[in-house]
């Protein structure tokens, strides 16, 4: 019954694992990538290089700066005399922010007036600039409260008039650290790349060498050939999910909070899409080079539109529609939900359903296109 499938699987496994380089590519590189991504794709902004122009040079201005640098967000790299120097340093990228304090800060504060402090921010990287502006305004607010309370205590009056204070708590990722957010994303990306690319190459390589001709003149059934070509990558895919999760947990302390069963099911549905796409590419490519180039084209778009680095909600509406047919987006949402929030099928049912639909269509088209002929 399954002799032919068994023969295919044995052959594929021998071929995949005989080459030591392949073993490294399949299992070691994904783990290394996880570590690199975990450390490198870090959206936390710290130690921002900052220049200071302190024209007031009063105890008050110096205190203001000391408190600012004490937070650890900013790092003073230069003490300048005028804005032109600051402008040059911003141009060359040696600083991201310049803080300008003009004459009369101490005097104005002493008179109970509002004193202006100027911040020149490098806005070329809008993300970082936004974060810097956030830090600065939070800092200014805190400084104001501090000044008011000091003044109140000096004058012996009521400490402070009633005020609203925002107490925010970041759920799921209390420190707003990057690794918990990116480790699951790495799983989605690596799984997509490895399984799609390898399944496409596995078929096209046989076309290129000519071995496929010998196989298709045998009575092997189409589905046996296809399963033989894809099942090994399903197993390799699962092994990668396990290995990357292990690295995430050991190195970055990122645990899986949600249901493991759901993780297994969702991964299976996701693999339908990636392997289906790989198989589809193998039906339209004659050489491994063609297969690779087409695969990278798809992978690039799928990753960009997955919410991996840029939230889907921030994309223009037509692009958001496009993400609806992107399996990586749905898998990313499921896997982030499972890792960070520990939510279950009750909440993730739509993502799971979408994965199933996309996977069925892609795999269906690929299988329908696959022919046991050479012409």
């Amino acid at each position, binding site marked *: 019954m399954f*002799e*032919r499938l*068994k*023969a*295919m699987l*044995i*052959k594929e496994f*021998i*071929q995949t694992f*005989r*080459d030591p380089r392949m073993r490294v590519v399949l299992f070691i590189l994904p783990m290394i990538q996880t570590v690199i991504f975990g450390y490198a794709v870090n959206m936390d902004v710290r130690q921002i290089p900052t220049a200071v122009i302190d024209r007031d040079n009063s105890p008050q201005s110096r205190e203001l700066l000391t408190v600012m640098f004490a937070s650890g967000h900013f790092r003073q790299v230069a003490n300048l005399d005028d804005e032109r120097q600051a402008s040059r340093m911003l141009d060359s990228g040696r600083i991201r922010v310049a803080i300008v304090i003009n004459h009369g800060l101490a005097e104005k504060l002493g008179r109970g007036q509002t004193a202006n402090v100027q911040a020149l921010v490098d806005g070329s990287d809008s993300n970082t600039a936004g974060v810097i502006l956030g830090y600065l305004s939070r800092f200014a607010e805190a400084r104001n409260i501090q000044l008011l309370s000091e003044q109140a205590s000096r004058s012996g009056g009521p400490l402070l008039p009633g005020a609203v204070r925002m107490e925010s708590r970041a759920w799921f990722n209390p420190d707003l650290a990057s690794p918990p957010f990116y480790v699951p994303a790495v799983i989605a990306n690596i799984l997509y790349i490895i399984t799609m690319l390898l399944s496409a190459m596995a078929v096209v390589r046989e076309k290129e*060498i*000519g*071995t496929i*001709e*010998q*196989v*298709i*003149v*045998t*009575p*092997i*059934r189409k589905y046996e050939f296809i399963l033989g070509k894809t099942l090994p990558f399903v197993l390799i895919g699962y092994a990668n999910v396990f290995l990357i999760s292990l690295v995430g947990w050991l190195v970055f302390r990122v645990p899986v909070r949600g249901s493991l069963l759901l993780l297994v099911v969702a991964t299976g549905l996701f693999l339908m899409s990636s392997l289906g796409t790989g198989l589809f590419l193998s039906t339209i490519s004659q050489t491994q080079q063609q297969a690779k180039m087409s695969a990278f084209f798809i992978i690039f778009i799928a990753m960009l539109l997955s919410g991996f680095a840029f939230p889907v909600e921030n994309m223009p509406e037509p692009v958001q529609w496009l993400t609806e047919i992107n399996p990586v987006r749905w898998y990313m949402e499921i896997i982030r939900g499972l890792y960070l929030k520990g939510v279950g099928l009750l909440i993730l049912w739509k993502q799971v359903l979408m994965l199933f639909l996309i996977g069925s269509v892609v795999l269906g088209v690929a299988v329908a296109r696959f022919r*046991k*002929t*050479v*012409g």
Partner: protein
Amino acid sequence: MHAIEISNLTKLFADLTAVDDLNLTIPKGELFGLVGSDGAGKTTTLRMLTGVLDASSGAATVLGCACHDLEPVRSHIGYMSQRFGLYPDLTVMENIRFHADIFGVPKGEWITRAERLLAMSGLQPFVKRRAGALSGGMKQKLGLCCALIHTPTVLFLDEPTNGVDPVSRRDFWRILDTLLAEGVTIVVATAYLDEAERCHRVGLLHHGRLLACDTPQNLKALADPVIAGPTLEDVFITVMGEGADTAVKRRPAPDLRSAAPAVILEGLTRCFGDFIAVNKISLTVPKGEIFGFLGPNGAGKSTTIRMLCGILEPSSGDGQVAGYDVATQAELIKENIGYMSQKFSLYEDLTVAENIAFYGGIYRLPAKQLAERADWVIEMAGLAERRHSKAGELSAGWRQRLALGCALLHKPPIIFLDEPTAGVDPLNRRRFWQLIHHLAADGVTVFVTTHYMDEAEYCDRLALIYRGELVAVGTPFELKQQRMVDGLLPSLEQVFIDLIEERDRQEGVV
């Protein structure tokens, strides 16, 4: 100064001595043939002489320049390796131009030269075709054109006519003749011993050692005295220590007039776009026959076989194999045939045993039967000690027999062999054909293509196709008889060339 001087040249690969203490001098203007079995060291020798590979010990010079640093004479050396570096995505002309450019041939000069080479090789009509879309023989000819575009003084050719049909081989040798007239020194490694007969001197290489080196005429004295009128092939086999008993023992000529048909073609046609690859071919092959399918490169032989095997759909016409229709019952056909394609199509990264196990599984052989058949294949192919070697490490003769074995695992009643012996040495080819006769004696129908006319003689009946059309059908004797001149039977090769040229004249193609 001689063109090539070799003294004590040796090359070791790990524990294998590929070339063993070779001494040889080749004067300028000589055509030197290097023959030997697969793995004898022909390619290794050529690669050392062209500076591609460094010798382990000993020395060699080409045009007075040491082979480990040929830069000063590089522009005088032409080398056509077995896997000549043609770019499949470039057209014929673009490939030639690329080679002219890297050798810095001035434009006016290479264009004139290219025209001459293209005319001689018959590639003129195909200048705009991509190299990847050429047939095997045309690729070889293009490779030669590229190697000759810069007027070399010494030319090295490594099995340049592998898989090339007789007409193209003749064109090929005509090109070499004009080069010789220009004083070019040529060293050619070949598996065709009739080609070696054309050389001034022939060196016989075996296990890296030069067993004999002389003119073809003098070499023939070395053949087993039992053989009357020996050919170089007989010399080859005698010198290698095998006697006259290696001659293929034919099975008794079968009477197949009443046999049921195994393969029927009725107006079978296949087009690729505007190009008609196979044009209304009708044939019947009875059960148990060895049927030879001949034709120049690109004539449509492989296309026909692929249609009969059910892996290429016919554009029109009918074909039946083992009683099943090729268009509608392809999967049933596949249960009943064995197929060996032109390229070596076993998995090179799998061992001999793993390849056999794979095909055994695909053909659903029960474990016990598979073990029996595996032993039979190993025994038949002489691979007992190589069971666990990777298929990619085997020499050509072994590979071909292993591929044949895998195609025969399920004991198919009909087998299709597409150039099964291309590049295989004479001794191994004889062994291969001995096997074919054994199979046919057991009632297996064999449908085989070949470019070796000595092999065509082993077939019961032959068909010659050209440009997709059937030109002639008959037994080897009948074909020769039709072309008899003054009561003398021509060789099959002559018949082949005559029929093709006649067709060309009829169609007004020069």
